[in-house]
C-alpha cells in the first residue's frame, strides 16, 4: 500500500508540475490528447442539438445595418436602463440581459458613449443578479473604461462582453440561460428593425425582416432543447406564432458556383435567393415582434 501511495504521490506531483508549466504542444501533444480524451464530456460548450450547433447572428451586425441605412439614433426605442433590477426571476433577467447587450451595441454603433457606459453597467449589475458576474471580469471592465470614446473598440468590447457571457454560461453548462441571453439580444434586434421597417416600408426593409425566418426557426429548436418550464413554453409559443406567419412566404434558392481569389483568401458566394414576402404580411410579423419585446421588458 505504501509503495502504491508513493507511486501516486510522484505521479500527482509530476502532473502538477506539468500543468503549471507553459504549454508546449509539440512536446506534450500525445499526453494532452490522452488527457482531453478522458475529459471529453466536459469540453463541449456549444448548444448542440443532435450533431448540429446553431450560430446566431451578431447583435452588432444587425444594429450596424441600422447605421448603414442612415436610420439615425432613436433613444426612445431603447429599453429603460434603470429597469435592470426590476426582474425577479432568472428567465426574464437573462432575456433582458440580452436586450441590454443589443442596446449597448446600438449605442456604441451610434457613438453614444455615455449611454453605452450606462448599458454596460446595467449588464454588469444584471449579471451579478444572475450570479454570472465572473463573465464581467476586471480586465473587461478596465478595457471598457479605457476605451470610452473609441467607437470601434467599444463595438469590439460589446462583442467580447456577449462572448464572455456565452462562454461562461456554456462552460458552466447553463445552456438554458445562454440561449435566453442570445434570444433576448435577437428580439431587441428585431424590435429595432421592426421600427425601422414601420418608418420606411421599402423592399430592402421587407427583405431584412423576411430574411430572419431561419434565425427564428433556429431559436425555436434551441429553446425547445434547452428549457422545459412554462416560461420557455410561452416564449416558444410566441416564436411559433411569428413563424406561422413566416410560413406564408415562399423562398426560392438557386445555386451559383462561387468564385475564389486565393491570393487574398476570399470566396465570393453568388448563390441567389428570393422570397415572396410582401408588406401586408411583414406588417403582421413586425407587430408581433414589437408585442413580444414589450412583453419581455414590462
Amino acid at each position: 500500500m505504501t509503495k502504491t501511495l508513493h507511486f501516486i504521490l510522484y505521479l500527482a506531483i509530476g502532473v502538477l508540475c506539468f500543468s503549471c508549466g507553459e504549454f508546449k504542444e509539440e512536446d506534450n501533444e500525445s499526453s494532452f490528447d490522452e488527457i482531453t480524451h478522458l475529459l471529453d464530456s466536459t469540453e463541449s460548450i456549444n448548444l448542440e442539438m443532435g450533431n448540429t450547433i446553431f450560430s446566431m447572428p451578431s447583435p452588432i451586425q444587425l444594429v450596424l445595418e441600422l447605421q448603414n441605412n442612415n436610420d439615425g439614433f432613436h433613444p426612445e426605442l431603447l429599453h429603460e436602463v434603470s429597469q435592470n433590477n426590476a426582474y425577479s426571476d432568472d428567465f426574464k433577467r437573462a432575456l433582458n440581459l440580452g436586450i441590454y447587450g443589443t442596446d449597448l451595441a446600438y449605442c456604441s454603433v451610434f457613438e453614444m458613449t455615455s449611454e453605452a457606459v450606462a448599458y454596460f453597467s446595467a449588464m454588469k449589475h444584471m449579471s451579478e443578479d444572475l450570479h454570472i458576474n465572473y463573465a464581467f471580469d476586471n480586465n473587461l471592465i478596465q478595457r471598457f473604461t479605457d476605451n470610452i470614446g473609441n467607437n470601434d473598440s467599444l463595438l469590439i468590447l460589446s462583442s467580447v462582453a456577449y462572448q464572455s457571457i456565452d462562454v461562461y454560461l456554456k462552460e458552466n453548462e447553463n445552456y438554458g440561460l445562454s440561449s435566453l441571453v442570445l434570444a433576448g439580444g435577437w428580439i431587441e434586434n428585431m424590435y429595432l428593425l421592426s421600427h425601422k421597417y414601420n418608418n420606411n416600408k421599402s423592399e430592402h426593409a421587407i427583405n431584412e425582416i423576411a430574411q430572419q425566418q431561419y434565425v427564428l426557426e433556429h431559436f425555436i429548436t434551441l429553446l425547445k432543447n434547452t428549457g422545459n418550464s412554462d416560461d420557455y413554453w410561452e416564449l416558444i409559443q410566441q416564436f411559433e406564432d411569428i413563424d406561422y406567419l413566416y410560413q406564408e412566404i415562399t423562398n426560392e434558392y438557386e445555386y451559383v458556383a462561387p468564385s475564389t481569389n486565393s491570393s487574398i483568401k476570399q470566396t465570393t458566394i453568388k448563390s441567389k435567393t428570393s422570397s415572396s414576402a410582401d408588406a401586408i404580411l411583414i406588417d403582421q410579423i413586425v407587430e408581433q415582434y414589437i408585442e413580444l419585446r414589450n412583453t419581455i421588458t414590462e
Partner: protein
Amino acid sequence: MKNSLFSFAVLTLTLISSLTLSSQTHCDSLHNIVKDLLSENIYDNSIYITDGQAYKSFLGESEISEISTTLFEGTTYRIATSAGIEENFMLFELYDQDRNLLFSNSDYNNSPYWDFKVENTIECTIETHLDLNKKLEGCALMMIAFKKAK
C-alpha cells in the same frame, strides 16, 4: 489503513483536478490563436467582429462538428479555426442548403481562416473536423466574424 485510504483519495482528486487544469489551459490557448487569426492579413481599413459566440468542441477521430448558420447579404465573413499551435490541424467545409459544397479549406493547404463575401442571404452549414493525417483528436475552436469598415 483508514489514513492510507484517505491519502489515496486526496491524491486521486489532486491528480484529476491537475488533469482538468492542464486540459482547460490547452482549450483556452486556442481562444487567443483564433482571435489572432481574425486580425491577420486585412488588406483594407477594416476590422472583424465576432458574432459573440465561441464554437468549441472536442473532436475525436471520426467526429464532425456541424454549425448551422445564416450568412447575410452584403456582408463579408471570416471563419477561423484552430485545434492547436500548428495552423493546419483543422479542416472545414461550407455547404449551402442543398448540400452543394461552396468551399473546403483542404483545397488551400488547410488554411486556418478564410473570408466569404456573401452576395445574397443564404442558409448554410459549416462542418469542421480534424485532418487525421496531422492530429487524431483534441479540442477545437471556431469563430465566425463579420467585417466592418473602420
